[in-house]
């Protein structure tokens, strides 16, 4: 772990709290509530991502059984049908080996309240409206699509987009800059728990438009948040598509670098 400031690390270790990740049931399971032969829900877009989050937790605990900086995954659903069949959801979760600490059943009005009450740091959804609402409330909301989330790597791959103007094809990772920065700092800290190789998290930075200076600035910004990127790509106008396909990120963050 490369650390430029050991003292702060030690102090902050005592104050580490979990990173609460809220994910909608529609993202976890196939939309429409598709079922497999056992009547359980079939894994959806966010599935590999959740597995990766879990892997990170396992490795964190392996390094330090008393670790408190862990991902805390809660499942949110506003789907009344699913709520009626709550046992099916819990069964499906268990069957797929996912670890969810809480289930939040709410209706559409209370849904945002739930996010805030649960101190959610990251909200994952496949619904654009939900993502928008989340960000308006100041919660870092990531809109998942089939390109970003369903990548086969076991390693959790986080991609920072260094140009503020750049957004993912899936739609922006919306939020106040602050929410994004604090989440990034948490990710950075988690990354710091592992060595350079064989880490369950990998952090990449991409700048799309500007030249090397803009990438340098982005690297410095990340560093100021306590994030040490593993990989950096300065594209300077080269089409992002092929590069993104190679990088296979689970999700993209760009709000840390916005000017507002």
């Amino acid at each position: 772990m490369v650390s430029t400031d050991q003292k702060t690390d030690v102090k902050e270790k005592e104050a580490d709290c979990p990173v609460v990740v809220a994910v909608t049931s529609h993202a976890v399971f196939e939309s429409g509530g598709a079922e497999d032969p056992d009547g359980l829900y079939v894994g959806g877009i966010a599935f590999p991502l959740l597995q990766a989050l879990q892997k990170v937790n396992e490795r964190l605990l392996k390094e330090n059984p008393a670790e408190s900086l862990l991902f805390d995954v809660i499942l949110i659903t506003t789907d009344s049908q699913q709520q009626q069949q709550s046992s099916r959801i819990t069964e499906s979760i268990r069957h797929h080996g996912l670890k969810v600490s809480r289930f939040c059943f709410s209706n559409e009005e209370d849904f945002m309240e739930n996010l805030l009450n649960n101190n959610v740091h990251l909200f994952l959804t496949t619904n654009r409206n939900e993502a928008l609402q989340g960000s308006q409330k100041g919660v870092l909301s990531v809109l998942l699509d089939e390109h970003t989330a369903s990548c086969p790597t076991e390693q959790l791959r986080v991609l920072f987009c260094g140009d503020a103007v750049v957004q993912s094809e899936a739609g922006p990772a919306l939020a106040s800059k602050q929410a994004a920065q604090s989440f990034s700092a948490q990710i950075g800290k988690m990354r710091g728990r592992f060595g350079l190789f064989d880490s369950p998290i990998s952090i990449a930075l991409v700048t799309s438009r500007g030249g090397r200076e803009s990438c340098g600035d982005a690297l410095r910004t990340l560093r100021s948040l306590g994030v040490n990127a593993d990989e950096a790509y300065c594209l300077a106008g080269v089409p992002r598509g092929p590069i993104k396909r190679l990088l296979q990120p689970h999700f993209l963050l760009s709000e840390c670098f916005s000017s507002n």
Partner: protein
Amino acid sequence: MVKMSLEPVQVMSGQVAELKVAPSSNGDSAGSWEGKREFDKDHLGLTAKPKPVTGRRARKVEGGVFFPKPENAVTVAVSSRVLFRTEREQKVFEQQGVEEYLRYQIEHENEPFAPGPAFPFVKALETVNARLRELYPQSEELFDIVLVTYNHAHVGIRLINTINHHNLFIERFCMTGGSSPIGYLKAWQTNLYLSADANKVREALTEGIAAATMFMPEKMTEVSESQLRVAFDGDAVLFSDESERIFKAHGLDKFFEHEKENEDRLLDHGPLKGFLEALGKLQKKFYAKGQRLDCPIRTYLVTARSAASSGIRALKTLRAWGLEIDEALFLAGAPKGPMLEKIRPHIYFDDQMFHIEGAAEMGTIAAHVPYGIAQKHNSKHNTSAGK
């Protein structure tokens, strides 16, 4: 290398006299370079109209910088270890491990690296770009230099500082943090990849990307600052290794016999053919503006073949490919070192470490193309591994 004859070195420059070439009978060959990485005339668009680049005349325009599209540019990817000198850091990595290596890099972040073996070559590419921009301000047909490294992004700021310090025009880079850069090389439509690590170079070659391994010579002789000079070996570099196989298996006489019999049969492509082609297309842009004599790109063939015999097949092949080479030097087996010392290329490509070492002894910057039958016989040099 056996001295093949007492023929004096024959230097042939400029346009070679019209050679009669039989229709190509290459058919399907064993060569793996057939059709791969063909530098398509249409894509480089010399005959087509240059794509209009709106509002981008100068290099830096209102916060936007002029970046050519990969399909239009000649992309040269260089690793940090060949562009700069990183021996000290390498030692830290080898002796104290990767964590200490990165800590060291960050600690010395504001100390720029010194120029490495690929540095003069990159500077020369930029000189050509400057001349191209003067003549074709809107064109994207330029050299695009990309830094591609296995380093972690922790080293990024030091690399950027170094690029700034040396005033290099490198705006694109790729730090893969340990994973293979091959996918990115392909996405960037890389025309040439230079690295210090033979394994990575071999990987690139098998993927159809022209690549060569560079080494830090003890001394680097001065090279031209106004003209890019690129020298190529023939067999197993521009051409396939088919003839070299004959030589290695059956000896010199058989080699001569074979070449004479097959004089009108084109040699197969070698890994660097595409790059020579790319250079040729840029050269033509200067010729089109009446700058043939003053062209800032000059290419050389430096081959052990003989002018009067085995060399003919090489020339005919180049001719059939529509490739011009400015000077063809047929050494007939004589050592290449002294000739290269006269030429002073910014880079010399050869498939045999014996020649690479000979060149380096005289201060020529040579790059090894680990391709073909000669690799089984390369015993002297230990390839360097690592970042």
